[in-house]
């Protein structure tokens, strides 16, 4: 019994290590985009990713063909969404620092990770139309802030687009 367990444990550890070696950099980038920390100093993003990866490790034997990257990303998003209020009061300085936590989450899932609208909606527990609306608003804020000084009250700019 214990011998069978330890063989299983060894295999899990080996597979998990290989997965982390391949995916951790991208996942940490996603996590850092979410927490809006500077990439050089991202303790909260690291903590978020460690917690998500721990879940993936615990579920490893029951993945049944499920993509571990998908699983981890889902755990990351859910954990971030649940704790999003905690990130509010921090001075956000990352690329997405001007966005609210929800806008960041939607933008990263939809545009950076290419998660389908319906899937993102299920993940966040909000209707797909809301995902689209938040995404549109976030894109507008990002494009405004990249050129003009930031203003959260600014209306989406329609200038220069067909």
């Amino acid at each position, binding site marked *: 019994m214990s011998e069978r367990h330890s063989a299983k444990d060894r295999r899990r550890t080996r597979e998990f290590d290989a997965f982390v070696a391949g995916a951790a950099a991208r996942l940490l980038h996603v996590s850092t*985009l979410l927490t809006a920390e500077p990439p050089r100093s991202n303790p909260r993003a690291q903590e978020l990713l460690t917690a998500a990866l721990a879940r993936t490790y615990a579920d490893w034997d029951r993945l049944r063909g499920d993509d571990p990257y998908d699983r981890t990303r889902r755990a990351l998003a859910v954990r971030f969404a649940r704790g999003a209020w905690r990130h509010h009061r921090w001075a956000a300085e990352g690329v997405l620092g001007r966005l609210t936590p929800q806008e960041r989450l939607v*933008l990263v899932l939809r545009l950076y990770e290419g998660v389908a609208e319906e899937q993102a909606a299920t993940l966040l527990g909000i209707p797909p139309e809301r995902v689209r609306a938040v995404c549109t608003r976030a894109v507008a804020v990002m494009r405004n802030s990249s050129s003009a000084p930031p203003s959260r009250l600014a209306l989406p700019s329609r200038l220069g687009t067909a």
Partner: protein
Amino acid sequence: MSGSERKEAEVRRMMETPHPVVPGGLGAQAAARGDRLLRRHRALRRALWLLLSAALLALAVWALATEPWLLPPSDTVPPVEGV
């Protein structure tokens, strides 16, 4: 490419900055934490099974001891007729 697609592509490019450096111990730390989580789940499952088997055993012992399916012996004697 439509206007909104172009805008989305522009924002996507903003997010494509170089990946941050992953600290060496992050994977090992996650595995250790996951291992603790796994052990906790296993212990919980084992405890539930143990509880269930104990309950079943108690039920079996009680049933064998009291044999509730037998009718209790009647206290009243039926009237004797035809004497």
